[in-house]
């Protein structure tokens, strides 16, 4: 089933919010409608649903992985080539601690970055219905749905008073 996306552009936050309400009335699901803004607005400005995410798990997992790898590298190399230097023990824990620490932090950060990109549903291959005006301060309301209901979406969007512009795009 081919998906289509429809985009309405607004200059007023409130009319964008109205558009969202209209869409809900017209029976569109939360996950079909999206707000596009060029600025981070406070959460729920348009009465949209608060996005759920599990970002905080990522660094913990990453740290665990990094720690394990670093532990293996440090302890492993020391045991694999047991040379005495400066009367230090073969397993010099304070020295290992430093590298294990760096390892965990590196793991945590890399996983966090991946997590951020993943959780914000990026990368997105097809832009769908999108307008360059959005990064100039316009507010877009887009509906992603199957072809049959695009007209309904369009009417709902226009009813809220777009600046006369409706953009259709493929998904």
């Amino acid at each position, binding site marked *: 089933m081919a998906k289509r996306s429809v985009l309405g552009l607004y200059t007023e936050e409130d009319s964008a919010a109205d558009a969202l309400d209209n869409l809900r009335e017209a029976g569109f699901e939360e996950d079909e409608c999206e707000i596009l803004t060029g600025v981070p607005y406070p959460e729920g400005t348009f009465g949209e649903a608060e996005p759920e995410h599990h970002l905080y798990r990522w660094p913990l997992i990453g740290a665990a992985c990094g720690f394990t790898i670093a532990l293996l590298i440090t302890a492993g190399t020391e045991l694999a*080539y047991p*040379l*005495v*230097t*400066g*009367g*230090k023990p073969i397993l*010099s824990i304070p020295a290992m601690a430093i590298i294990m620490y760096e390892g965990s932090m590196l793991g945590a950060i890399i996983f966090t970055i991946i997590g951020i990109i993943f959780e914000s549903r990026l990368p997105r291959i097809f832009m769908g219905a999108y307008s360059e005006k959005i990064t100039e301060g316009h507010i877009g309301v887009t509906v992603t749905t199957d072809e049959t209901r695009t007209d309904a979406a369009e009417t709902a969007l226009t009813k809220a008073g777009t600046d006369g512009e409706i953009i259709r795009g493929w998904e």
Partner: protein
Amino acid sequence: MVNSNKWGMVVDIDRCTGCQGCVVACQAENNIPINLEEHFNQRRAIQWIRIERYWEGEYPDVKARFIPIMCQHCGNAPCEPVCPVYATYHNDEGMNVQVYNRCIGTRFCANGCPYHIRFFNFWEPEWPESLKNQLNPDVTVRSRGIMEKCSFCVQRIQRSTREADRDGVDLEDGDRGLNPACVNACATNSIIFGNFNDPNSEVSKIKEREMKEGGRGYGLLENLGTDPNVIYLKKVDESVEVGHGH
């Protein structure tokens, strides 16, 4: 494998005349490039063993004091753990060995050594044509960019051990084939080399005698806890404190 040897040295400052014989012998034995005047001016001369000379007293009654300083082969060597590539480590014969192939020349160890007996090859080593054939085949010629230092003439130790094993005899203490070049060259026998693990060796006896209270023995800068394998016997007259580190 655990080796029973723990090589070490005793240097009797009381006997040292500062004749520099050990220095020359060391240069010849270990393929150390000729130290020209500019090397000294650049403070880049390489002397695995050097005689440090200190003046004592005011003119006219001024005395010269000499102390030969070579790698102390410390038990807790500050130079070893800081090397990122294991180019220097403590081998099981109690020696601090330098692996030229591993060295990449961070010179961390040279800064770490409180005795300044680690030398860096700032230039490619050069010998006059006449000396090309004099180079010792048992010793690597060090290229530029790496550290080097006294090895207790490890090549001599290896050879004698090998031969002793072959003939099935024990290494005898003070054997000239075993001794490092500096020891053989010393006219006044002020440097003695031997195995600290062998209670009958000369060095062990001296250690036994001199390291106890009232003895003349001390380790250079021993308060740093480097646990050197070289014992110095101080001048007999007690007023002198040459190189007696705090």
